């Protein structure tokens, strides 16, 4: 964990990204796009936290994000926390055990935890349904792809914030696991 003179601004910017994501997601994205194309911006933030933060700090961020998330969703706080923690631990595991250097690797690094979360959520919500089960699965796939697409830009923004606030050393990003 590194702290520089801009750390406090970095923290504020990070919180700003979380709140901006919530507002954009609940108004612009859900108001204009089809439900099959909703990118889940906050999941990207959790993936980033899993890749770039220590375990305890990552858990605290994830719990905060899932709490804010649940205030803007029908998802309960506890369930939201459990599903978000799944993304955190999955992305943390991927970040520590695989190299994420190329776009393809980053795509898989982001897609796997996000899809795992969406698939489990779908199973949890629709396990008792027969015929309609396939539709939520398709939706989980398409929304994961949209989230990953938007995720590339969000990861760049979050990395920029961390480099600017000196939480991350720009040179350390080259060839680094996760």
């Amino acid at each position, binding site marked *: 964990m590194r702290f520089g003179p801009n750390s406090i601004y970095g923290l504020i910017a990070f919180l700003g990204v979380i*709140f901006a994501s*919530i*507002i*954009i*997601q*609940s*108004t*612009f994205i*859900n*108001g*204009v796009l089809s*439900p099959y194309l*909703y990118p*889940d911006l*906050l999941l990207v933030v959790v993936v980033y936290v899993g890749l770039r933060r220590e*375990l*305890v700090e990552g*858990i605290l961020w994830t719990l905060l994000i899932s709490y*804010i*998330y649940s*205030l*803007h*969703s*029908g*998802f*309960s*706080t*506890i*369930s939201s*926390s*459990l599903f978000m*923690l799944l993304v955190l*631990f999955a992305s943390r595991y991927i970040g520590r055990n695989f190299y994420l250097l190329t776009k393809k690797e980053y795509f898989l690094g982001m897609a796997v935890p996000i899809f795992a979360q*969406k698939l489990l*959520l*779908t199973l949890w*919500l*629709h396990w008792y*349904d*027969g*015929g*309609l089960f396939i*539709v*939520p699965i398709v*939706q989980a796939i398409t*929304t994961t792809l949209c989230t990953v697409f938007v995720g590339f830009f969000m990861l760049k923004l979050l990395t920029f914030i961390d480099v600017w606030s000196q939480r991350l050393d720009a040179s350390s990003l080259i060839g680094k696991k996760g």
Partner: protein
Amino acid sequence: MLEFFQGKFKELLVILTLVLVLVTVNAVHKTEDKARWYDKAIIFVTAPLQYVVNSVIKGSVRLTGDYVLVQDIKEDNKNLLKENQKLLYKLNQLTELGFENARLRNLLSLKEKLPINMISSVVIAEDVNSSFKSVRIDRGEEEGINVGMPVINYYGVVGQIIKVYSKYSDVMLVTDPNSSIDAVVQESRARGIVKGQGEPICKLKYLNRLDDVSVGYRLVTSGIEQRFPKGLAVGEVVKVNRKNYGVTQEVLVRPSVDFDKLEEVFVIKNQNI
């Protein structure tokens, strides 16, 4: 495998403890419908921003739509005038029926229904998770809104209030996976539960296999659960799958309300069911 678990022991312990704590808290605190002061503090920051962004987006969409539609207005106007004449004729007939209905009610000594006290509201934001279907409206406990109050619009049932803040409330829509509404088939009076699927189409559950239901039949609230007034439109049957076995039949229902175009709603504050 063993080495993996030994190396990750600390991390696994943290994960297990967290999951255990969260599951325990979930079991103890199942109801979260009362907003706490810190919930209100966050909503106090985000909801006005949601209101502004939503207004800008809806305004832009409406403006674009108006521009595209302006070419068809003349044709629509002609058709509407014709439609208006037909409706006036029907209105006269319905007025007559209304008087007749009132007379019959008096004869049967039925209790006169109290006027429903409703409050209008504007949708300012939608659920951030595509698996859940809820919206935020711009009325809260300051206007007397409470958890459980039914929400409707001109077309029928929208949902019910699940969380209330000072100036805002969250509404669980009919299509939410956690939503279930007691309904009757208008034509045959068969009774079932309309259950949300997280999709635009709902399921009508617990409808007896022998009950009369066909595509196009309309569903209205039964009023039995005392949440929604009796007779509000819920949806229309779009598919019936009656198998040769089993007690119930599978019925799919399209809600009366188009949730993609949901802008204004009414919250029913008191009712005489």
